[in-house]
């Protein structure tokens, strides 16, 4: 019980902090792509003479702009919280909380490591070891649409209303598509338990290729990325926001309530990255790393203590998630935005039928091979 709570707190704070840091990564990545320096004006310099060594230590952080997430937070918390006079006060306040909550709770079912052995304790590195984790995560992600729709509805603003409607239809369409893209993986590993799916990816094909989802389901992987990006509501799928068209469902929000929607986007990005990692890149698996150390395909072996193995696994998971986040960011800063009907067309007429075909082919292969 205690251990679960501690794990939950660790995961919660890690995700929140990474989401905050994600804003920094996004700024720097976009700056890198656009020949800019990126935000670096949030300086912390102590005024006293004796603090010179501290200032010296702070200097690289200042120059990298790492204080910007904190500055953002301060700004958002101290801004006026505006509720439109003819909006629904209760729903208007509720919406960002719903949005953020449903984005966060999904992480409980993501396994970020195998087992942590401390003395006689064995800790399963997954907050909620559910045997229907896939269903749970997808249910929570679908619930997230409520926050968005309520935000659009309660703002009493035509732009926000349009944004809410767009978000609802987009998320419904892509939720189903997203579900269809991972059926292949679920069928191969025969489980809805994410920990089981990840463990299943520890095997090897032909004795040297790790049995990751990406090698078993390459089409499923690409479809998942395409549909998953839509789930994050970011360019090229940012039609609910469409900042130059309809400004978005959160147009009437200010201060930290806006910040929560903003945060939700980042957390959803991390969520999709975590899911992609779990389903297709072997989750916490490190190639050839078993519980007692590396077993290389050419026969040699490198024994490792269990703590090091756990550390490597958690590191591997985090690394993959960050890599996916980086990939999403690169896509976000390269492509323009879809139009509403084109998005629906892509979802229903493009990704969905291919995903169904993928399921059929996978089923046939599983049956006959």
């Amino acid at each position, binding site marked *: 019980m205690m251990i679960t709570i501690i794990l939950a707190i660790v995961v919660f704070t890690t995700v929140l902090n990474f989401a905050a840091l994600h804003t920094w990564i996004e700024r720097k990545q976009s700056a890198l*792509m*656009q*020949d800019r320096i990126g935000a670096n004006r949030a300086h912390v310099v102590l005024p006293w003479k004796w603090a010179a060594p501290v200032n010296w230590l702070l200097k690289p952080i200042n120059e990298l702009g790492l204080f910007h997430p904190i500055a953002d937070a301060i700004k958002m918390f101290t801004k006026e919280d505006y509720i439109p006079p003819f909006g629904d006060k209760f729903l208007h306040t509720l919406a960002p909380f719903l949005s953020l909550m449903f984005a966060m709770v999904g992480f409980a079912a993501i396994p970020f490591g195998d087992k942590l052995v401390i003395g006689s304790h064995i800790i399963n590195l997954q907050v909620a070891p559910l045997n229907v984790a896939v269903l749970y995560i997808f249910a929570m992600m679908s619930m997230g649409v409520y926050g968005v729709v309520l935000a659009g509805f309660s703002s009493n603003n035509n732009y926000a209303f*349009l944004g809410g409607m767009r978000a609802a239809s987009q998320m419904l369409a892509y939720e189903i598509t997203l579900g269809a893209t991972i059926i292949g993986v679920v069928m191969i590993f025969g489980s809805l338990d994410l920990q089981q799916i990840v463990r299943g990816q520890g095997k090897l094909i032909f004795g040297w290729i790790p049995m990751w989802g990406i090698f078993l389901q390459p089409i499923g992987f690409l479809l998942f990325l395409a549909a998953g990006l839509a789930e994050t509501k970011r360019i090229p799928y940012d039609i609910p926001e469409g900042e*130059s*068209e309809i400004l978005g469902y959160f147009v009437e929000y200010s201060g930290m309530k806006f910040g929560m929607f903003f945060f939700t986007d980042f957390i959803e990005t991390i969520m999709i990255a975590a899911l992609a990692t779990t389903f297709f890149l072997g989750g916490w698996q490190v190639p050839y790393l078993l519980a007692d150390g590396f077993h290389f395909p050419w026969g040699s072996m490198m024994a490792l203590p269990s703590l090091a193995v756990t550390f490597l696994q958690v590191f591997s998971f985090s690394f993959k998630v960050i890599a996916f986040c980086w990939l999403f960011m690169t896509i976000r800063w390269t492509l323009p935005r879809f*139009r*509403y*009907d084109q998005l629906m067309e892509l979802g229903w007429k493009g990704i969905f039928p291919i995903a169904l075909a993928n399921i059929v082919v996978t089923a046939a292969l599983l049956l006959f091979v």
Partner: protein
Amino acid sequence: MTQAAEFKKTRTESMLLNVGPSHPAMHGIVRIITELDGENVLSSDVEIGYLHRAFEKSSEQSGYLQVMPYTDRLNYVSPLINNTGYCLAVEKLFGLDVTERAKYIRVIMCEISRITDHLTCVGASAMELGAFTAFLYMIKARDYLYKIIEDVTGARLTISYMRIGGVKGDLPAGFEGKCREALAETRKVIKECDELLTKNRIFVDRLKDTGVISKEAALGYGITGPFLRSTGVDYDVRRATPYLVYDRFDFEVPVGEHGDNYDRYLCRMDEMEQSIRIIEQALDQIPQGPVLLGTDGKVIPAEDMVDEAKMGRVEGLGFRVADFDPTLAGANKYMYPEGHVNNKRAELPPKEDTYSNIEGLMNHFKMIMDGHGIRPPKGEAYFPVEGANGELGFYIVSDGTGRPYRVRVRPPCFVIVAALPVLINGGSLADIVPTFGSVNMIGGELDR
């Protein structure tokens, strides 16, 4: 239909949405009142006038020379073309033909301006479609050109470089090399953006078959420029009625086919390349010589154009002897002590005279304060030039006094904005953004 059935029928209502006046996609300020059925635009009405600054009326209140800074603020993305258009119209009143070198300088500066305008337009449309990176690339390229403009004119945006009878100052030393370098850089960026956008499936899907206008409708509205050419009409003022020295260059007029946003985008991208070609040819051909004429048609010597006192260095100016550099950079050279003006009614006296003797002061005073400046003969003149958005015309009526009786501008984007409802009705709300972006509405020019 029974009453129950009628009751069950869903009641549908259209939604009124005010796009603008303050909206991220409405460059400047304009309001599009749209009636929406879901996402589809049923009808729309464009309301302009939010940036009305009484340009035409103000022009009637000031002398011919003082109109110049106002023209910068018409199309603030390509102010050099506005300058040129106005000067050409006044010169037509006078019957002046400026020197060869001045013509070439004008052509070069106009084409640089055209490129900056197209870069801004295409970049901004791309940004509004979400491709923020392409926008910043293009703004980067624009900055290379702005640096060139700054070198020549001393300012980046509100340049007031042209003068009635020529240009304010000669090109700076080393201009050709710098200009060619900047053009090469710009070309690189345009190619990069071309690779990023032109075959990008999302971008093409967003632009193709949106904001379509037929050839006949475009002509009926009086649309010109890239907008008209995208429908397939080969009309370019530079080609149809060549002014300055445009007939000496080898360039193509890119023509579209469908009249949709994508063709407009392609037209603008191609036009930038053609403008670069024109500049390169002009740099090859440009002769040496004076760059400014008085209103009597006589050349104003270089030394009279240099005005050191504007830099604030006035001590002892009247007693110095010096040689001259006819560029703006020449402003830090010594002043010719008795630099005389050909036409005291047309040109401001050197500042040293203004500050050091009564004749100069009075001359200056009369010209600035009393509208005693240039006096074109009675008459009227209309001069069209090819602005970045289309035909930019200045119609000037002179009653023989120091102030224009009437200055009327034919802004290219005014007629396009008038046709905007035709373009966006029946489309999707999201299509307003690229369509409006391709109109390249400039508030200053539209509302004047």
